[in-house]
């Protein structure tokens, strides 16, 4: 391979003290070139993401409906009424709780299944590439298509799962996986629809975790485990004390990524259950306020509350595990 070692870019004169104010002309040119090259990115993110977010935050404190916005302009009547309504509206707290259960369940599920899959496919065997490819299908396929397949698969009247369940597994009647709020299983009420949605999310995103974990596993030097074999460790011990610690930074990063994405997730729940049967996550609620009631102020306030909750949770997470995630990103 090349003998070139990674080093800082060209225009770097002898080690300069970090905090020197006056930059050399070369450095200034570099600074300008850099800013020019990222400016398209910054502009589009600013216009399509940052400004709308700021505006929404403002709308959350105004009393507006969709029809008023065009005429009203940016500064309306400021009010805390929307926030009060969010907190006092029926179903808000249970919706937040549902969102949390959904997010934690799906994040955990996809990472654990992804880890198991990565372990199973770690050592090469014939046809591994093919199986690995098959395993990525749920992640690659469009959400609308897979959500509908699940709906049909689990449908009580023509779905194959219920058909087999009744015929071979001795279910006394078909289970309405997606429309029944809760079932008694051995005397314990199980939130069926919520569980099904979590299972769907796990199924769809374990390939994502799998990809990252197997990439990391392949970079673990084999000598580590070979040495442990010589020391007489069992496979479980090698996983627990050698492999797992090596994977932890990736696991921490995956946790953050999956948590953020799932927390804000709209499509999957909306397509599977429409937010019914105890799967009313906040993202779907926001959408409903927006499209059914055209109540922009309330929808915005709800979305802002969701974002604040997420930020607080992430803040807590980084307080406790921040170092690991940082390491991974470096």
């Amino acid at each position, binding site marked *: 391979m090349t003998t070139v070692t990674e080093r800082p870019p060209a225009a770097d004169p002898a080690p300069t003290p970090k905090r020197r104010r006056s930059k050399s002309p070369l450095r200034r040119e570099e600074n300008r070139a850099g800013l020019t090259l990222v400016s398209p*990115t910054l502009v589009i*993110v600013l216009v399509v993401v940052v400004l*709308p977010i700021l505006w929404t935050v403002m709308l959350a404190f105004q009393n507006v409906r969709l029809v008023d916005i065009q005429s009203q302009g940016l500064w309306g009547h400021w009010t805390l009424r929307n926030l009060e309504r969010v907190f006092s509206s029926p179903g808000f707290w249970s919706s937040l709780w549902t969102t949390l259960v959904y997010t934690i369940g799906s994040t955990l599920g996809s990472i654990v299944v992804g880890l198991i899959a990565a372990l199973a496919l770690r050592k090469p065997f014939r046809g591994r590439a093919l199986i690995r490819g098959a395993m990525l299908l749920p992640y690659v396929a469009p959400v609308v298509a897979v959500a509908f397949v699940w709906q049909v698969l689990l449908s009580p009247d023509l*779905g194959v799962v219920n058909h087999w369940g009744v015929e071979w597994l001795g279910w006394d009647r078909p289970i309405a996986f997606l429309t029944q709020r809760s079932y008694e299983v051995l005397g314990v009420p199980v939130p069926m629809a919520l569980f099904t949605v979590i299972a769907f999310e796990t199924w769809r995103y374990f390939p994502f975790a799998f990809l990252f974990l197997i990439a990391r596993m392949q970079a673990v030097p084999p000598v580590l485990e070979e040495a442990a074999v010589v020391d007489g460790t069992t496979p479980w011990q090698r996983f627990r004390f050698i492999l797992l610690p090596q994977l932890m930074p990736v696991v921490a990063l995956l946790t953050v990524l999956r948590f953020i994405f799932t927390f804000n997730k709209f499509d999957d729940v909306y397509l599977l259950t429409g937010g019914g049967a105890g799967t009313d996550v906040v993202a779907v609620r926001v959408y409903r306020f927006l499209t059914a009631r055209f109540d922009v102020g309330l929808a915005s306030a709800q979305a802002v509350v969701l974002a604040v909750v997420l930020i607080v949770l992430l803040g807590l997470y980084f307080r406790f595990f921040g170092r690991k995630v940082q390491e991974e990103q470096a």
Partner: protein
Amino acid sequence: MTRDGFQIRFFGIMRWVVIAVLVVATVFPFYYMVLLSVKPIDELLLDPGRIWVSAKEFSLDSYRSVLTSVENGGQGFPLMLRNSAIVSIGAMLLTLLVAIPGAYAVSRLRFTGHRKVGALFLGVYLFPATLLAVPLFVMFAKVGLQGSLFGLIVVYIAQTVPVAIYMLRSYFSTVPVSIEEAAALDGCSRFQILRKVVLPLAAPSVMATALYVFMIAWNEFLFALLFLAAEPDHWTVSLGLQQLANGVEVPKTVLMAGSVVLTLPVVLMFYGAERLLTEGLTSGADKG
């Protein structure tokens, strides 16, 4: 048996059990999708448990219905396929146009804030997409982009640029600096270096990023729903399929045929370039 021996046997067997379960779990739904799409609905209702199709009942009627234009009494997917193609390819090209210079700058140049890519990520993904909907809706209405495919493309660029920069950045930093220095000595400007040296060397990664953006845009549903729901002529395939499912009594078999039509392009594309893609997405992950 020793504990070690037991574990080796146990995990050895479990490994194959796990592989079998995972393959069934991931492949079966797609098999089922294709199966139902070529079955007449009556046969399905007659015996929902039969998971194969006999030569006698095999029929492409569902596909015919899906792929016939609305004027001719079908579901009008050709138009939607065209819309999806325009949006996805447009988003792909424009995202690259924006992300390539950005990624190059982030990987090579030291400018104010060059380590703040993470902030970009948070800015774009931390807030629920529904939060962006209202202001974007109003902004687009003001500049005449409401219900247009171009408006959707603009949103997709913003949604994919952070991922694109993340993917490209790690590739660009593998291009040896010395090559660039040589080009600079030969009198290339920074822009020329990017275009004539870095891009050709990073071509596979640019391809991978392009495909990934295409996939995201092709599969996207929420923004299409928010911006285009009122414009049936501009529906993408994802949106059209969902509206079809919401409509009056459409047989599930037709729905599945639509799902196959929606899924096939991305899946083909993905497996055409699987290696590229999976390595691209995770290339940052194995640095430990």
